[in-house]
């Protein structure tokens, strides 16, 4: 059941209404049932995996505090991590592993036939596995008390708004909220619906619109010139942001309507001045997860510069692999890791050279340039994320500036090739520029705050026009959320 499907549009109001109508003591059970129903609408069998992951982490987390020695606790945690990662490996990475093995053995002239089995990747497996593991690690570290109520813990892992594409919630934030008594709150409901509306706008109007041109180019990358590749790359940057942050907004909005506050997952990432800042604004729940549960345990920045850089690189490589079982994602992670290392190495020099008064115009220009450089770097890295293979991505990067000419007819013919039809171009022209304007406005003056200051009739007109606009420009062919595959 996709957020952008008719089924969900019916499902959610029913769930929210029933949630407020039934007594508090039954709400967890109702939400749990609704969450499993939501998840099983993809494939009922995969609910077993969700249940297994839940049961294993719950059992281990209950046992850990009872073990007296650190070694015993560690063994239990290792068991929990192994089981969860084994499930993830089997369903997500086994094919990559066997094809990698085949590649290596083939070069060593060793006869090997890859095991041929195809399993459908369970939706959201990486998200709920990491959420459950985060909980187990928190219990192991003594940061939280284990949740004794199995039902509530199962709800924590399967809570439907964030089950399939995050945000990857922390137990400290979400678990206590299941014990709170949520009465209907007008502000929560309005703000939640506003967030959902904004999320839908980003997903079904912007992301699904630009994806047509992006797919045209990236699915046949070698047919296109540099100009088309650049346009497609920029559009993909918009697509992936709108797709993923749109999902997060809908998830946060749904939860907020029912009184749950999920963590913010995106905070204007394309306005970052550096890659480091980008990762504090992009997929925040995952970035902080990796920081807390991988980077810091590896030693973080406490063991010298070299070790710090290695830790950083490992974290980004794993992050890349988390995103998908393809070498392109690993390369994407590596690019981010290496660029961050370079950024950190060169920071002292750059700071010395570009030292300006923070109120001077030059400082503003420098900031603007750093935003552009960061955006371009991120966009180029997205090529590896989006391309079907590393060779396609390398081809795209090499041919970025391989333009025919700068004549109007050349640009026009390229645009025709990318967009296919004039209607497609009109759709893009009617949607993307408005989104960019709204995003810039939101970055510097909160859109929500500015909107709230307007008088009711004006707000009502804007609501009606905006909803109508979404209904008219929603893409006819429903697209999956990109992050579902992770």
């Amino acid at each position, binding site marked *: 059941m996709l957020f952008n499907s008719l089924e969900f549009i019916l499902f959610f109001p029913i769930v929210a209404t029933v949630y407020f109508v039934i007594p508090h003591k039954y709400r967890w059970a109702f939400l749990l049932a609704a969450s499993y129903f939501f998840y099983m609408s993809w494939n009922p069998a995969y609910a077993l995996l969700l249940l297994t992951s839940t049961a294993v982490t719950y059992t281990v987390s209950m046992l850990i505090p009872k073990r007296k020695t650190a070694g015993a606790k560690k063994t239990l945690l290792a068991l929990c991590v192994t089981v969860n990662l084994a499930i993830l490996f089997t369903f997500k990475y086994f094919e990559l592993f066997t094809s990698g093995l085949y590649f290596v053995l083939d070069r060593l002239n060793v006869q090997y036939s890859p095991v041929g089995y195809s399993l459908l990747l369970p939706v959201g497996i990486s998200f709920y596995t990491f959420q459950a593991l985060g909980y187990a690690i928190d219990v192991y570290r003594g940061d939280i008390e284990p949740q004794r109520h199995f039902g509530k813990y199962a709800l924590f892992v399967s809570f439907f708004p964030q089950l399939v594409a995050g945000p990857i919630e922390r137990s400290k934030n979400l678990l206590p909220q299941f014990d709170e008594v949520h009465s209907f709150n*007008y502000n929560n409901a309005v703000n939640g619906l506003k967030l959902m509306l904004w999320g839908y706008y980003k997903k079904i109007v912007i992301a699904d619109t630009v994806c047509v041109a992006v797919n045209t180019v990236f699915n046949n990358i070698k047919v296109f010139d540099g100009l088309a590749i650049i346009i497609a790359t920029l559009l993909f940057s918009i697509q992936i942001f709108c797709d993923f942050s749109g999902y997060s907004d809908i998830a946060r909005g749904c939860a907020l309507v029912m009184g749950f506050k999920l963590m913010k997952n995106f905070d204007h990432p394309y306005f970052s001045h550096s890659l480091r800042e980008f990762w504090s604004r992009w997929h925040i729940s995952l970035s902080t997860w990796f920081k807390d549960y991988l980077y810091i345990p590896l030693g973080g920045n406490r063991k010298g510069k070299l070790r710090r850089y290695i830790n950083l690189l490992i974290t980004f490589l794993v992050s890349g692999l988390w995103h998908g079982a393809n070498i392109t994602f690993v390369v994407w992670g590596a690019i981010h890791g290496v660029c961050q290392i370079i950024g950190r190495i060169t920071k002292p020099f750059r700071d010395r050279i570009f030292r300006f008064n923070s109120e001077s115009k030059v400082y503003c220009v420098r900031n603007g340039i750093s935003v552009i450089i960061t955006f371009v770097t991120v966009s180029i890295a997205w090529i590896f994320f989006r391309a079907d293979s590393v060779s396609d991505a390398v081809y795209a990067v090499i041919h970025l500036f391989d333009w025919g000419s700068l004549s109007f007819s050349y640009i026009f013919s390229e645009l025709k090739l990318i967009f296919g039809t004039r209607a497609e171009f009109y759709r893009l022209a009617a949607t993307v520029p408005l989104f960019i304007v709204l995003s810039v406005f939101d970055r510097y003056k909160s859109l929500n705050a500015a909107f709230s200051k307007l008088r009711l009739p004006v707000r009502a007109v804007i609501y009606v026009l905006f909803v109508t606009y979404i209904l008219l420009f929603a893409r006819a062919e429903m697209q999956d959320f990109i992050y579902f595959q992770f």
Partner: protein
Amino acid sequence: MKNNCLKFIVKLAALLLLVCIVVGTINFAYVRGYYYRDVYGEIDKMKNVPYNITMANFGTSHGLSCFRYPENDKSKFNFALSGEDIYHDFATLKQFTSHLEKGCIVAIPTSYFSFCMSTDEPSQKRYYIYLDRKYIRGFSFESLINAKYIPVLRSGEFIIKDLIKDQERDIGAEMMDNSAADKESTESLTEVTGNIPAQSESGNSDAQLVAHAKGRAESWRSGYMVAGKIYTEKNTQLLIEMVNYCYDMGFKPLLVTTPVYYALNERFAENEINECYFEPINRVVEATGVPYLDLSHDSELSANPDYYSNSDHMNSAGAEAFFERYTEFLSEIGYSAG
């Protein structure tokens, strides 16, 4: 809390009502606009299919352009739709079976790409307008509501087209002048969106038709004939079922390959067109014994540029010449209407 809840519900209901009014108003204008009439106009005929039909044809835009019955003759009906695949031909036949007289002559024209059209893709929205739910492939209520009741939903770009009075077809004359590669990605959509490329009723010069044939062959090749081979078997079986269904219902079926300009035939290698088209259609003939009229390489019809609006669609003069040959063939095989 109760007051808050009531306030919320009232405001939300008022907002939804206003949205419905605005969307409804735009929808009212949209379905009367140029774009909607242009694309969905050809479906209108399906809303008024007469009964007691004694001669009918199905097929794609090729059938649409060749079978031109007298307007006031309600006993003959052209069911063809541009870009129609065999599955939807069959579905349309089943839907309107009760409109056909026993002994009705049912011509099933097929196009070079017919056997290579996808048999998996969900039905286009136009089929929701006149086909029963059971015939819709990948039925969804969302599409039903969108197609049948509120077509304006998700049609923003076409509203813009109407607003700025851009009556250029998505895939139109503008594209005809460009290279085949330009058209490759877009022309394949012609068949999907149901748009018939801009056509000239007055005929074309040989050079124009030759140029068009080049682009057309490329677009068919890239759009269907290469990747679509996996569908050949399924489409062949569907056509066999369709022919057998005609026999079971007491109709008189025949297969037809409509004429195409010689230059288009020249664009295809013999083994290529055999594999994609003639082998499957001959298998249908062998399996069912259905009469087959193949005018694709007819020396007279294929060579005359005055018969064509473009390299694969006949104009009215061409349609007249075609129909003469068609009726001759009907007498040869002993098919008489009724």
